[in-house]
Protein backbone atom coordinates (compact mmCIF):
# COMPACT_ATOMS: atom_id res chain seq x y z
CA UNK A 1 0.00 0.00 0.00
CA UNK A 2 2.25 2.84 1.16
CA UNK A 3 5.63 1.23 1.16
CA UNK A 4 7.12 -0.88 3.91
CA UNK A 5 7.37 0.32 7.46
CA UNK A 6 10.77 0.18 9.05
CA UNK A 7 11.11 -0.66 12.73
CA UNK A 8 12.44 2.82 13.44
CA UNK A 9 9.51 4.30 11.53
CA UNK A 10 7.04 2.28 13.55
CA UNK A 11 8.70 3.32 16.78
CA UNK A 12 8.52 7.00 15.83
CA UNK A 13 4.93 6.63 14.74
CA UNK A 14 3.67 4.94 17.87
CA UNK A 15 5.68 7.22 20.15
CA UNK A 16 4.11 10.24 18.51
CA UNK A 17 0.61 8.78 18.48
CA UNK A 18 1.00 7.76 22.11
CA UNK A 19 2.15 11.20 23.18
CA UNK A 20 -0.70 12.83 21.32
CA UNK A 21 -3.17 10.47 22.95
CA UNK A 22 -1.77 11.40 26.36
CA UNK A 23 -2.03 15.08 25.51
CA UNK A 24 -5.61 14.62 24.26
CA UNK A 25 -6.89 12.67 27.20
CA UNK A 26 -4.95 14.08 30.16
CA UNK A 27 -6.87 17.37 30.59
CA UNK A 28 -10.09 15.37 30.76
CA UNK A 29 -8.63 12.95 33.28
CA UNK A 30 -7.37 15.86 35.33
CA UNK A 31 -10.68 17.69 35.52
CA UNK A 32 -12.39 14.42 36.52
CA UNK A 33 -9.83 13.74 39.26
CA UNK A 34 -10.11 17.29 40.56
CA UNK A 35 -13.88 16.99 40.75
CA UNK A 36 -13.55 13.85 42.91
CA UNK A 37 -11.20 15.36 45.48
CA UNK A 38 -12.45 16.65 48.79
CA UNK A 39 -12.63 20.45 48.59
CA UNK A 40 -9.68 20.81 50.99
CA UNK A 41 -7.45 18.42 48.99
CA UNK A 42 -7.73 20.35 45.71
CA UNK A 43 -5.22 22.92 46.94
CA UNK A 44 -2.96 20.48 48.76
CA UNK A 45 0.73 20.41 47.98
CA UNK A 46 2.37 18.55 46.32
CA UNK A 47 -0.28 17.89 43.70
CA UNK A 48 -1.87 14.45 44.01
CA UNK A 49 -2.26 12.81 40.60
CA UNK A 50 -4.18 10.00 42.23
CA UNK A 51 -6.06 11.24 45.31
CA UNK A 52 -5.80 9.27 48.56
CA UNK A 53 -9.50 9.65 49.20
CA UNK A 54 -12.36 10.25 46.84
CA UNK A 55 -15.29 12.47 47.68
CA UNK A 56 -18.56 13.39 46.04
CA UNK A 57 -18.68 16.61 48.05
CA UNK A 58 -18.30 18.84 44.98
CA UNK A 59 -21.19 17.13 43.18
CA UNK A 60 -23.37 17.30 46.25
CA UNK A 61 -22.72 21.02 46.45
CA UNK A 62 -23.84 21.52 42.84
CA UNK A 63 -27.23 19.99 43.39
CA UNK A 64 -27.69 21.42 46.87
CA UNK A 65 -26.60 25.04 46.60
CA UNK A 66 -26.66 25.68 42.88
CA UNK A 67 -29.67 23.82 41.45
CA UNK A 68 -27.51 22.38 38.70
CA UNK A 69 -30.14 19.75 37.97
CA UNK A 70 -32.50 22.38 36.55
CA UNK A 71 -29.77 23.71 34.26
CA UNK A 72 -29.01 20.21 33.03
CA UNK A 73 -32.68 19.58 32.26
CA UNK A 74 -32.97 22.94 30.48
CA UNK A 75 -29.93 22.21 28.34
CA UNK A 76 -31.16 18.72 27.60
CA UNK A 77 -34.61 19.88 26.48
CA UNK A 78 -33.34 22.80 24.39
CA UNK A 79 -30.54 20.85 22.71
CA UNK A 80 -32.72 17.82 21.94
CA UNK A 81 -35.62 19.75 20.45
CA UNK A 82 -33.51 22.26 18.55
CA UNK A 83 -31.14 19.54 17.33
CA UNK A 84 -33.98 17.34 16.08
CA UNK A 85 -35.94 20.09 14.34
CA UNK A 86 -32.79 21.52 12.77
CA UNK A 87 -31.82 18.09 11.48
CA UNK A 88 -35.28 17.56 9.93
CA UNK A 89 -35.27 20.97 8.26
CA UNK A 90 -31.72 20.54 7.05
CA UNK A 91 -32.49 17.13 5.57
CA UNK A 92 -35.07 18.73 3.29
CA UNK A 93 -32.83 21.55 2.15
CA UNK A 94 -29.78 19.29 1.82
CA UNK A 95 -31.75 16.90 -0.39
CA UNK A 96 -32.77 19.71 -2.73
CA UNK A 97 -29.24 21.14 -2.83
CA UNK A 98 -27.73 17.74 -3.59
CA UNK A 99 -30.19 16.54 -6.20
CA UNK A 100 -31.44 19.60 -8.10
CA UNK A 101 -29.84 22.34 -10.12
CA UNK A 102 -31.46 25.76 -9.89
CA UNK A 103 -30.52 29.36 -10.39
CA UNK A 104 -30.35 30.49 -6.75
CA UNK A 105 -28.38 27.47 -5.59
CA UNK A 106 -24.96 29.04 -5.36
CA UNK A 107 -26.46 32.14 -3.75
CA UNK A 108 -28.06 29.94 -1.09
CA UNK A 109 -24.78 28.14 -0.43
CA UNK A 110 -23.01 31.48 -0.19
CA UNK A 111 -25.67 32.70 2.24
CA UNK A 112 -25.01 29.62 4.36
CA UNK A 113 -21.27 30.25 4.27
CA UNK A 114 -21.71 33.88 5.33
CA UNK A 115 -23.54 32.78 8.49
CA UNK A 116 -20.28 31.14 9.56
CA UNK A 117 -18.45 34.44 9.30
CA UNK A 118 -20.76 36.58 11.35
CA UNK A 119 -19.56 37.16 14.90
CA UNK A 120 -22.65 36.31 16.93
CA UNK A 121 -22.10 39.47 18.95
CA UNK A 122 -23.13 41.70 16.08
CA UNK A 123 -26.61 40.16 16.16
CA UNK A 124 -27.14 39.93 19.90
CA UNK A 125 -28.67 43.37 20.47
CA UNK A 126 -31.32 43.20 17.74
CA UNK A 127 -31.98 39.55 18.55
CA UNK A 128 -32.68 40.45 22.16
CA UNK A 129 -35.12 43.19 21.05
CA UNK A 130 -36.80 40.80 18.62
CA UNK A 131 -37.23 38.17 21.31
CA UNK A 132 -38.58 40.79 23.71
CA UNK A 133 -41.23 41.72 21.14
CA UNK A 134 -42.11 38.06 20.66
CA UNK A 135 -42.20 37.63 24.47
CA UNK A 136 -39.66 34.84 24.16
CA UNK A 137 -36.91 36.16 26.44
CA UNK A 138 -36.24 33.76 29.30
CA UNK A 139 -38.27 31.19 27.45
CA UNK A 140 -36.84 27.86 26.38
CA UNK A 141 -38.90 27.95 23.17
CA UNK A 142 -37.17 31.19 22.24
CA UNK A 143 -33.73 29.64 22.64
CA UNK A 144 -34.85 26.60 20.62
CA UNK A 145 -35.93 28.80 17.71
CA UNK A 146 -32.65 30.70 17.71
CA UNK A 147 -30.58 27.51 17.96
CA UNK A 148 -32.42 25.97 15.00
CA UNK A 149 -31.35 28.95 12.92
CA UNK A 150 -27.78 28.56 14.17
CA UNK A 151 -27.61 24.85 13.33
CA UNK A 152 -29.36 24.78 9.96
CA UNK A 153 -26.69 26.26 7.65
CA UNK A 154 -23.84 23.95 8.58
CA UNK A 155 -26.07 20.94 9.07
CA UNK A 156 -27.51 21.44 5.58
CA UNK A 157 -24.06 21.51 4.04
CA UNK A 158 -22.97 18.48 6.04
CA UNK A 159 -26.04 16.45 5.05
CA UNK A 160 -25.66 17.55 1.45
CA UNK A 161 -22.28 15.84 1.49
CA UNK A 162 -23.89 12.67 2.78
CA UNK A 163 -26.64 12.80 0.12
CA UNK A 164 -24.06 13.21 -2.61
CA UNK A 165 -22.35 10.05 -1.48
CA UNK A 166 -25.47 8.07 -2.32
CA UNK A 167 -25.63 7.27 -6.02
CA UNK A 168 -28.56 8.74 -7.95
CA UNK A 169 -29.23 5.32 -9.45
CA UNK A 170 -30.70 4.19 -6.14
CA UNK A 171 -33.64 6.58 -6.36
CA UNK A 172 -33.92 6.27 -10.11
CA UNK A 173 -34.40 2.54 -9.72
CA UNK A 174 -37.00 3.08 -6.99
CA UNK A 175 -38.87 5.54 -9.17
CA UNK A 176 -38.88 3.13 -12.08
CA UNK A 177 -40.38 0.63 -9.69
CA UNK A 178 -43.27 3.06 -9.32
CA UNK A 179 -42.44 5.15 -6.28
CA UNK A 180 -42.95 8.89 -6.46
CA UNK A 181 -40.01 11.19 -5.93
CA UNK A 182 -41.15 11.78 -2.36
CA UNK A 183 -41.73 8.07 -1.86
CA UNK A 184 -38.25 7.32 -3.10
CA UNK A 185 -36.84 9.90 -0.71
CA UNK A 186 -38.67 8.53 2.33
CA UNK A 187 -38.61 4.81 1.63
CA UNK A 188 -35.25 4.38 -0.08
CA UNK A 189 -32.97 7.36 0.41
CA UNK A 190 -33.56 8.22 4.07
CA UNK A 191 -32.95 4.67 5.38
CA UNK A 192 -29.65 4.60 3.51
CA UNK A 193 -28.85 8.04 4.89
CA UNK A 194 -29.56 7.09 8.50
CA UNK A 195 -25.95 7.11 9.75
CA UNK A 196 -25.48 10.56 8.25
CA UNK A 197 -28.69 11.88 9.75
CA UNK A 198 -27.83 10.49 13.18
CA UNK A 199 -24.38 12.07 12.96
CA UNK A 200 -25.91 15.39 11.96
CA UNK A 201 -28.35 15.29 14.87
CA UNK A 202 -25.58 14.56 17.35
CA UNK A 203 -23.48 17.33 15.89
CA UNK A 204 -26.39 19.75 16.29
CA UNK A 205 -27.16 18.53 19.78
CA UNK A 206 -23.57 19.03 20.90
CA UNK A 207 -23.41 22.49 19.35
CA UNK A 208 -26.60 23.60 21.13
CA UNK A 209 -25.50 21.97 24.37
CA UNK A 210 -22.23 23.91 24.25
CA UNK A 211 -23.50 27.29 23.04
CA UNK A 212 -22.74 30.11 25.46
CA UNK A 213 -23.27 33.66 24.23
CA UNK A 214 -26.83 33.46 22.89
CA UNK A 215 -27.93 31.60 25.98
CA UNK A 216 -26.31 34.13 28.32
CA UNK A 217 -28.11 36.92 26.48
CA UNK A 218 -31.55 35.36 26.29
CA UNK A 219 -31.79 33.35 29.52
CA UNK A 220 -31.42 35.46 32.65
CA UNK A 221 -33.53 33.86 35.32
CA UNK A 222 -32.44 30.89 37.38
CA UNK A 223 -35.24 28.64 36.17
CA UNK A 224 -34.36 28.88 32.48
CA UNK A 225 -30.54 28.99 32.54
CA UNK A 226 -28.65 26.41 30.55
CA UNK A 227 -25.46 24.73 31.72
CA UNK A 228 -22.95 26.99 29.92
CA UNK A 229 -24.73 30.05 31.31
CA UNK A 230 -24.39 28.64 34.80
CA UNK A 231 -20.69 27.91 34.24
CA UNK A 232 -20.21 31.47 33.08
CA UNK A 233 -21.73 32.57 36.37
CA UNK A 234 -19.13 30.48 38.20
CA UNK A 235 -16.17 32.26 36.59
CA UNK A 236 -17.45 35.79 36.81
CA UNK A 237 -16.89 35.69 40.55
CA UNK A 238 -13.35 36.79 41.39
CA UNK A 239 -12.18 33.52 42.89
CA UNK A 240 -13.18 30.40 41.05
CA UNK A 241 -14.38 27.55 43.24
CA UNK A 242 -12.38 24.90 41.37
CA UNK A 243 -14.08 22.00 43.08
CA UNK A 244 -17.60 22.95 41.99
CA UNK A 245 -16.28 24.11 38.64
CA UNK A 246 -14.61 20.76 37.94
CA UNK A 247 -17.70 18.81 38.93
CA UNK A 248 -19.88 21.04 36.75
CA UNK A 249 -17.42 20.64 33.87
CA UNK A 250 -17.54 16.85 34.16
CA UNK A 251 -21.35 16.88 34.14
CA UNK A 252 -21.29 19.14 31.09
CA UNK A 253 -18.69 17.22 29.12
CA UNK A 254 -19.76 13.66 29.87
CA UNK A 255 -23.02 13.51 27.86
CA UNK A 256 -21.52 15.10 24.77
CA UNK A 257 -18.53 12.79 24.90
CA UNK A 258 -20.75 9.74 25.12
CA UNK A 259 -22.74 10.94 22.10
CA UNK A 260 -19.62 11.82 20.15
CA UNK A 261 -18.16 8.40 20.85
CA UNK A 262 -20.97 7.10 18.64
CA UNK A 263 -21.08 9.98 16.19
CA UNK A 264 -17.37 10.07 15.49
CA UNK A 265 -17.66 6.64 13.90
CA UNK A 266 -20.56 7.81 11.73
CA UNK A 267 -18.86 11.05 10.80
CA UNK A 268 -15.63 9.36 9.84
CA UNK A 269 -17.63 6.70 8.04
CA UNK A 270 -19.59 9.32 6.16
CA UNK A 271 -16.52 11.30 5.24
CA UNK A 272 -14.59 8.29 4.12
CA UNK A 273 -17.79 7.16 2.37
CA UNK A 274 -17.66 3.57 1.21
CA UNK A 275 -20.26 2.49 3.72
CA UNK A 276 -23.13 4.35 2.09
CA UNK A 277 -22.07 3.76 -1.48
CA UNK A 278 -24.53 1.19 -2.75
Amino acid sequence: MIGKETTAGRATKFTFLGLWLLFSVFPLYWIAVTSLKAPGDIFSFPIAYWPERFSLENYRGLFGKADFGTYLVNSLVVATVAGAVATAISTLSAYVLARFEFRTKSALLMAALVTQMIPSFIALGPLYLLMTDLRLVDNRLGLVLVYIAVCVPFCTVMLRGFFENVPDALEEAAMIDGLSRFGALVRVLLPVMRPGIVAAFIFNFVNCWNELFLSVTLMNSDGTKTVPTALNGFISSFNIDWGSMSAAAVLTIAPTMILFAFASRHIVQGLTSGAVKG
Partner: protein
Amino acid sequence: MPAASTGSPATAPLKSSAPPSGSGGAPRRPGAAGGRRRREFTTRRGLIVAAFMAPAAVFVAIFTYYPMIAGSQMAFRNWNLSDLTDTSWVGLKNFRDVFTDPAWGTVAGNTLLWVAGSIVPQLVIGFAIALWLRRRFRFRGLYQALIFFPWAISGFLIGILFRWLFNSEFGVVNDVLQRTGLIDEPIAWLADPRTAMVSVLIANVWYGVTFFAIMILAALQSVPDELYEAAALDGAGKARTLFQVTIPYIRTTLALTVLLRVIWIFNFPDLIFGMTGGGPNDETHIVTTWMIKITQQGDYGKASALGLLVVAVLLVFAVFFLLATRERQATGGRGAGRRGAGERGVWA
Protein backbone atom coordinates in the same frame (compact mmCIF):
# COMPACT_ATOMS: atom_id res chain seq x y z
CA MET B 1 -34.20 -4.36 -8.59
CA PRO B 2 -34.84 -4.35 -12.33
CA ALA B 3 -32.36 -2.57 -14.50
CA ALA B 4 -33.22 1.01 -15.35
CA SER B 5 -34.87 1.13 -18.76
CA THR B 6 -33.45 4.29 -20.20
CA GLY B 7 -35.91 6.53 -21.90
CA SER B 8 -38.90 5.43 -19.88
CA PRO B 9 -41.16 8.40 -19.16
CA ALA B 10 -41.04 7.52 -15.46
CA THR B 11 -37.32 8.21 -15.40
CA ALA B 12 -37.66 11.84 -14.44
CA PRO B 13 -34.13 13.17 -14.35
CA LEU B 14 -33.05 13.76 -10.81
CA LYS B 15 -30.57 16.34 -11.80
CA SER B 16 -29.91 18.58 -14.70
CA SER B 17 -26.87 20.64 -15.24
CA ALA B 18 -28.63 23.07 -17.56
CA PRO B 19 -30.04 26.31 -16.15
CA PRO B 20 -33.70 26.10 -15.13
CA SER B 21 -34.84 28.32 -17.98
CA GLY B 22 -33.24 25.96 -20.45
CA SER B 23 -34.30 22.53 -21.51
CA GLY B 24 -33.58 20.98 -18.09
CA GLY B 25 -32.93 17.29 -18.13
CA ALA B 26 -30.26 14.64 -18.07
CA PRO B 27 -28.85 13.39 -21.35
CA ARG B 28 -31.11 10.37 -21.31
CA ARG B 29 -34.25 12.52 -21.29
CA PRO B 30 -36.45 11.41 -24.16
CA GLY B 31 -35.99 13.91 -26.93
CA ALA B 32 -39.67 13.71 -27.76
CA ALA B 33 -40.84 15.51 -24.62
CA GLY B 34 -42.90 18.46 -25.76
CA GLY B 35 -42.62 22.05 -24.62
CA ARG B 36 -45.75 21.96 -22.50
CA ARG B 37 -44.75 18.84 -20.73
CA ARG B 38 -41.34 20.27 -20.08
CA ARG B 39 -42.75 23.45 -18.55
CA GLU B 40 -45.01 21.47 -16.24
CA PHE B 41 -42.09 19.48 -15.09
CA THR B 42 -40.02 22.62 -14.43
CA THR B 43 -42.82 24.20 -12.42
CA ARG B 44 -43.25 21.15 -10.28
CA ARG B 45 -39.54 20.93 -9.75
CA GLY B 46 -39.50 24.58 -8.76
CA LEU B 47 -42.27 23.93 -6.25
CA ILE B 48 -40.35 21.06 -4.68
CA VAL B 49 -37.23 23.20 -4.42
CA ALA B 50 -39.16 26.08 -2.88
CA ALA B 51 -41.12 23.93 -0.44
CA PHE B 52 -38.06 22.01 0.74
CA MET B 53 -35.89 25.09 1.09
CA ALA B 54 -38.55 27.22 2.79
CA PRO B 55 -38.24 26.08 6.42
CA ALA B 56 -34.47 26.49 6.44
CA ALA B 57 -34.66 29.85 4.71
CA VAL B 58 -37.33 31.19 7.06
CA PHE B 59 -35.44 30.29 10.24
CA VAL B 60 -32.12 31.63 9.03
CA ALA B 61 -33.71 34.80 7.65
CA ILE B 62 -35.57 35.67 10.86
CA PHE B 63 -33.08 34.62 13.52
CA THR B 64 -29.74 35.11 11.77
CA TYR B 65 -29.95 37.50 8.85
CA TYR B 66 -32.46 39.95 10.28
CA PRO B 67 -30.55 40.53 13.56
CA MET B 68 -27.27 40.61 11.68
CA ILE B 69 -28.42 43.30 9.27
CA ALA B 70 -30.12 45.26 12.04
CA GLY B 71 -26.93 44.97 14.08
CA SER B 72 -24.77 46.08 11.16
CA GLN B 73 -26.51 49.42 10.87
CA MET B 74 -25.66 50.14 14.51
CA ALA B 75 -22.07 50.41 13.28
CA PHE B 76 -23.00 53.71 11.62
CA ARG B 77 -25.04 55.07 14.51
CA ASN B 78 -24.36 56.44 17.92
CA TRP B 79 -25.61 53.47 19.90
CA ASN B 80 -24.42 53.50 23.47
CA LEU B 81 -26.30 52.09 26.45
CA SER B 82 -25.10 55.06 28.52
CA ASP B 83 -27.25 57.38 26.41
CA LEU B 84 -29.97 55.87 24.28
CA THR B 85 -31.74 59.20 23.64
CA ASP B 86 -29.36 59.95 20.77
CA THR B 87 -29.07 57.16 18.24
CA SER B 88 -28.30 59.41 15.31
CA TRP B 89 -26.33 58.52 12.19
CA VAL B 90 -22.63 59.16 12.75
CA GLY B 91 -21.09 57.81 9.58
CA LEU B 92 -17.70 56.25 10.12
CA LYS B 93 -17.11 57.57 13.63
CA ASN B 94 -17.36 54.11 15.22
CA PHE B 95 -14.75 52.76 12.83
CA ARG B 96 -12.50 55.70 13.71
CA ASP B 97 -13.01 54.89 17.39
CA VAL B 98 -11.87 51.33 16.74
CA PHE B 99 -8.69 52.30 14.89
CA THR B 100 -7.72 55.05 17.33
CA ASP B 101 -8.24 52.89 20.41
CA PRO B 102 -4.85 52.22 22.05
CA ALA B 103 -5.74 48.52 22.32
CA TRP B 104 -6.33 48.16 18.56
CA GLY B 105 -2.71 47.38 17.63
CA THR B 106 -2.47 44.62 20.24
CA VAL B 107 -5.84 43.21 19.26
CA ALA B 108 -5.06 43.12 15.54
CA GLY B 109 -1.65 41.54 16.15
CA ASN B 110 -3.10 38.98 18.55
CA THR B 111 -5.80 38.05 16.05
CA LEU B 112 -3.22 37.29 13.35
CA LEU B 113 -1.12 35.35 15.85
CA TRP B 114 -4.20 33.50 17.06
CA VAL B 115 -5.21 32.41 13.55
CA ALA B 116 -1.74 31.58 12.21
CA GLY B 117 -0.43 30.14 15.47
CA SER B 118 -3.44 27.83 15.69
CA ILE B 119 -3.78 26.79 12.06
CA VAL B 120 -0.16 25.87 11.34
CA PRO B 121 0.39 23.41 14.22
CA GLN B 122 -3.13 22.01 13.79
CA LEU B 123 -2.47 21.33 10.12
CA VAL B 124 1.01 19.86 10.57
CA ILE B 125 0.13 17.62 13.52
CA GLY B 126 -3.24 16.70 12.01
CA PHE B 127 -1.53 15.73 8.75
CA ALA B 128 1.03 13.60 10.58
CA ILE B 129 -1.68 11.81 12.54
CA ALA B 130 -3.72 11.22 9.38
CA LEU B 131 -0.71 9.76 7.54
CA TRP B 132 0.05 7.48 10.45
CA LEU B 133 -3.56 6.42 10.89
CA ARG B 134 -3.90 5.49 7.25
CA ARG B 135 -2.43 2.08 7.81
CA ARG B 136 -4.66 -0.17 9.87
CA PHE B 137 -3.47 -1.29 13.27
CA ARG B 138 -5.15 -2.82 16.26
CA PHE B 139 -7.22 -0.32 18.28
CA ARG B 140 -7.12 2.24 15.47
CA GLY B 141 -10.86 2.84 15.82
CA LEU B 142 -10.56 3.32 19.57
CA TYR B 143 -7.63 5.65 19.05
CA GLN B 144 -9.63 7.76 16.62
CA ALA B 145 -12.56 7.96 19.01
CA LEU B 146 -10.33 9.03 21.90
CA ILE B 147 -8.51 11.79 20.07
CA PHE B 148 -11.88 12.95 18.72
CA PHE B 149 -13.13 13.84 22.20
CA PRO B 150 -11.84 17.43 22.44
CA TRP B 151 -14.11 18.22 19.51
CA ALA B 152 -17.15 17.46 21.69
CA ILE B 153 -16.30 20.11 24.28
CA SER B 154 -17.31 23.75 24.07
CA GLY B 155 -14.53 26.25 23.49
CA PHE B 156 -15.57 28.06 26.62
CA LEU B 157 -15.17 24.93 28.73
CA ILE B 158 -11.83 24.15 27.09
CA GLY B 159 -10.75 27.59 28.22
CA ILE B 160 -11.76 26.76 31.79
CA LEU B 161 -10.04 23.37 31.61
CA PHE B 162 -6.75 24.89 30.51
CA ARG B 163 -7.09 27.77 32.94
CA TRP B 164 -6.93 25.10 35.64
CA LEU B 165 -3.99 23.27 33.99
CA PHE B 166 -2.01 26.52 33.65
CA ASN B 167 -2.85 27.72 37.17
CA SER B 168 0.34 29.20 38.60
CA GLU B 169 0.11 27.59 42.06
CA PHE B 170 -1.88 24.39 41.64
CA GLY B 171 -1.59 23.82 37.89
CA VAL B 172 -0.26 20.59 36.46
CA VAL B 173 1.85 22.29 33.81
CA ASN B 174 4.11 23.99 36.37
CA ASP B 175 4.19 20.88 38.51
CA VAL B 176 5.37 18.67 35.64
CA LEU B 177 7.92 21.19 34.43
CA GLN B 178 9.33 21.58 37.93
CA ARG B 179 9.46 17.86 38.62
CA THR B 180 11.33 17.23 35.37
CA GLY B 181 13.69 20.07 36.22
CA LEU B 182 12.87 22.16 33.15
CA ILE B 183 12.02 25.17 35.30
CA ASP B 184 13.03 26.13 38.83
CA GLU B 185 10.27 28.55 39.70
CA PRO B 186 6.59 28.24 38.87
CA ILE B 187 5.61 30.36 35.87
CA ALA B 188 2.56 32.62 36.12
CA TRP B 189 1.41 31.50 32.67
CA LEU B 190 -1.79 33.50 32.42
CA ALA B 191 -0.49 36.62 34.15
CA ASP B 192 2.25 37.43 31.63
CA PRO B 193 0.91 38.54 28.23
CA ARG B 194 3.42 36.52 26.21
CA THR B 195 3.02 33.21 28.04
CA ALA B 196 -0.74 33.82 28.21
CA MET B 197 -0.90 33.98 24.41
CA VAL B 198 1.19 30.79 24.14
CA SER B 199 -1.15 29.10 26.61
CA VAL B 200 -4.33 29.91 24.71
CA LEU B 201 -2.67 28.74 21.49
CA ILE B 202 -1.73 25.40 23.07
CA ALA B 203 -5.33 24.97 24.20
CA ASN B 204 -6.63 25.72 20.71
CA VAL B 205 -4.20 23.30 19.06
CA TRP B 206 -5.40 20.65 21.51
CA TYR B 207 -8.94 21.34 20.34
CA GLY B 208 -8.46 21.64 16.59
CA VAL B 209 -5.98 18.97 15.52
CA THR B 210 -8.62 16.27 15.30
CA PHE B 211 -10.68 18.06 12.69
CA PHE B 212 -7.69 18.27 10.38
CA ALA B 213 -6.76 14.66 11.11
CA ILE B 214 -10.24 13.43 10.20
CA MET B 215 -10.60 15.53 7.04
CA ILE B 216 -7.12 14.66 5.78
CA LEU B 217 -7.53 10.98 6.61
CA ALA B 218 -10.75 10.93 4.61
CA ALA B 219 -9.00 12.58 1.68
CA LEU B 220 -6.00 10.25 1.90
CA GLN B 221 -8.28 7.28 1.50
CA SER B 222 -9.38 8.61 -1.86
CA VAL B 223 -5.84 8.52 -3.27
CA PRO B 224 -5.65 5.54 -5.65
CA ASP B 225 -3.06 2.93 -4.69
CA GLU B 226 -1.84 2.83 -8.29
CA LEU B 227 -0.35 6.29 -7.84
CA TYR B 228 1.75 5.02 -4.96
CA GLU B 229 2.74 1.93 -6.91
CA ALA B 230 3.82 4.10 -9.82
CA ALA B 231 5.76 6.37 -7.49
CA ALA B 232 7.46 3.35 -5.94
CA LEU B 233 8.37 2.04 -9.43
CA ASP B 234 9.94 5.40 -10.19
CA GLY B 235 11.99 4.98 -7.06
CA ALA B 236 10.49 7.97 -5.30
CA GLY B 237 11.33 8.18 -1.61
CA LYS B 238 8.93 8.93 1.18
CA ALA B 239 9.34 12.68 1.09
CA ARG B 240 9.03 12.87 -2.69
CA THR B 241 5.94 10.67 -2.66
CA LEU B 242 4.41 12.92 -0.03
CA PHE B 243 5.08 16.16 -1.86
CA GLN B 244 4.60 14.99 -5.45
CA VAL B 245 1.79 12.46 -5.12
CA THR B 246 -0.13 12.78 -1.86
CA ILE B 247 -0.28 16.52 -1.36
CA PRO B 248 -1.13 17.42 -4.97
CA TYR B 249 -3.88 14.81 -5.01
CA ILE B 250 -5.60 16.03 -1.84
CA ARG B 251 -4.77 19.69 -2.42
CA THR B 252 -8.40 20.75 -2.75
CA THR B 253 -9.39 19.19 0.55
CA LEU B 254 -6.39 20.80 2.21
CA ALA B 255 -7.28 24.23 0.86
CA LEU B 256 -10.93 23.95 1.76
CA THR B 257 -10.25 22.66 5.25
CA VAL B 258 -7.71 25.39 5.95
CA LEU B 259 -10.02 28.15 4.75
CA LEU B 260 -13.00 26.84 6.66
CA ARG B 261 -10.89 26.58 9.79
CA VAL B 262 -9.50 30.09 9.28
CA ILE B 263 -13.06 31.41 9.28
CA TRP B 264 -13.97 29.48 12.40
CA ILE B 265 -10.82 30.24 14.37
CA PHE B 266 -10.94 33.93 13.47
CA ASN B 267 -14.45 34.04 14.81
CA PHE B 268 -13.95 31.96 17.94
CA PRO B 269 -13.91 34.04 21.11
CA ASP B 270 -15.17 31.22 23.37
CA LEU B 271 -11.85 29.66 24.32
CA ILE B 272 -10.01 32.88 25.17
CA PHE B 273 -13.13 34.18 26.91
CA GLY B 274 -13.10 31.15 29.21
CA MET B 275 -9.33 30.98 29.71
CA THR B 276 -8.11 34.54 30.21
CA GLY B 277 -11.15 36.71 29.57
CA GLY B 278 -8.81 38.79 27.41
CA GLY B 279 -6.49 39.54 30.31
CA PRO B 280 -4.03 40.30 31.71
CA ASN B 281 -4.71 43.97 31.01
CA ASP B 282 -6.45 43.26 27.70
CA GLU B 283 -3.25 41.71 26.35
CA THR B 284 -4.79 38.47 25.04
CA HIS B 285 -7.83 39.97 23.34
CA ILE B 286 -8.52 38.99 19.77
CA VAL B 287 -11.05 40.94 17.70
CA THR B 288 -14.06 38.94 18.83
CA THR B 289 -13.25 38.86 22.56
CA TRP B 290 -12.56 42.58 22.42
CA MET B 291 -15.94 42.97 20.78
CA ILE B 292 -17.51 41.18 23.75
CA LYS B 293 -15.78 43.56 26.14
CA ILE B 294 -16.95 46.61 24.22
CA THR B 295 -20.49 45.23 24.13
CA GLN B 296 -20.38 44.72 27.88
CA GLN B 297 -19.29 48.34 28.26
CA GLY B 298 -22.45 49.27 26.36
CA ASP B 299 -20.95 50.73 23.18
CA TYR B 300 -22.93 48.71 20.65
CA GLY B 301 -22.00 51.07 17.82
CA LYS B 302 -18.29 50.45 18.20
CA ALA B 303 -18.78 46.72 18.74
CA SER B 304 -20.83 46.48 15.55
CA ALA B 305 -18.18 48.36 13.60
CA LEU B 306 -15.69 45.76 14.80
CA GLY B 307 -18.09 42.99 13.78
CA LEU B 308 -18.41 44.39 10.27
CA LEU B 309 -14.63 44.48 9.98
CA VAL B 310 -14.54 40.77 10.87
CA VAL B 311 -17.13 39.93 8.22
CA ALA B 312 -15.21 41.99 5.64
CA VAL B 313 -11.91 40.24 6.33
CA LEU B 314 -13.55 36.84 6.28
CA LEU B 315 -15.29 37.56 2.99
CA VAL B 316 -11.85 37.96 1.43
CA PHE B 317 -11.05 34.46 2.65
CA ALA B 318 -14.34 33.24 1.22
CA VAL B 319 -13.29 34.49 -2.21
CA PHE B 320 -10.18 32.33 -2.01
CA PHE B 321 -12.39 29.55 -0.84
CA LEU B 322 -14.73 29.76 -3.80
CA LEU B 323 -11.84 30.08 -6.23
CA ALA B 324 -10.39 26.87 -4.85
CA THR B 325 -13.75 25.21 -5.30
CA ARG B 326 -14.14 26.45 -8.85
CA GLU B 327 -10.77 25.00 -9.73
CA ARG B 328 -12.01 21.65 -8.50
CA GLN B 329 -15.04 21.81 -10.76
CA ALA B 330 -12.89 22.71 -13.72
CA THR B 331 -10.57 19.78 -13.16
CA GLY B 332 -13.26 17.16 -12.91
CA GLY B 333 -15.93 17.59 -10.31
CA ARG B 334 -19.19 15.75 -10.51
CA GLY B 335 -19.80 13.14 -13.08
CA ALA B 336 -16.12 12.81 -13.95
CA GLY B 337 -15.92 9.58 -12.03
CA ARG B 338 -16.53 9.08 -8.38
CA ARG B 339 -14.09 10.62 -5.99
CA GLY B 340 -13.79 10.36 -2.25
CA ALA B 341 -15.87 12.63 -0.09
CA GLY B 342 -12.69 14.24 1.07
CA GLU B 343 -12.19 15.53 -2.44
CA ARG B 344 -15.51 17.29 -2.48
CA GLY B 345 -15.99 20.91 -1.63
CA VAL B 346 -17.78 21.39 1.64
CA TRP B 347 -19.63 24.54 0.74
CA ALA B 348 -20.01 24.63 -2.99
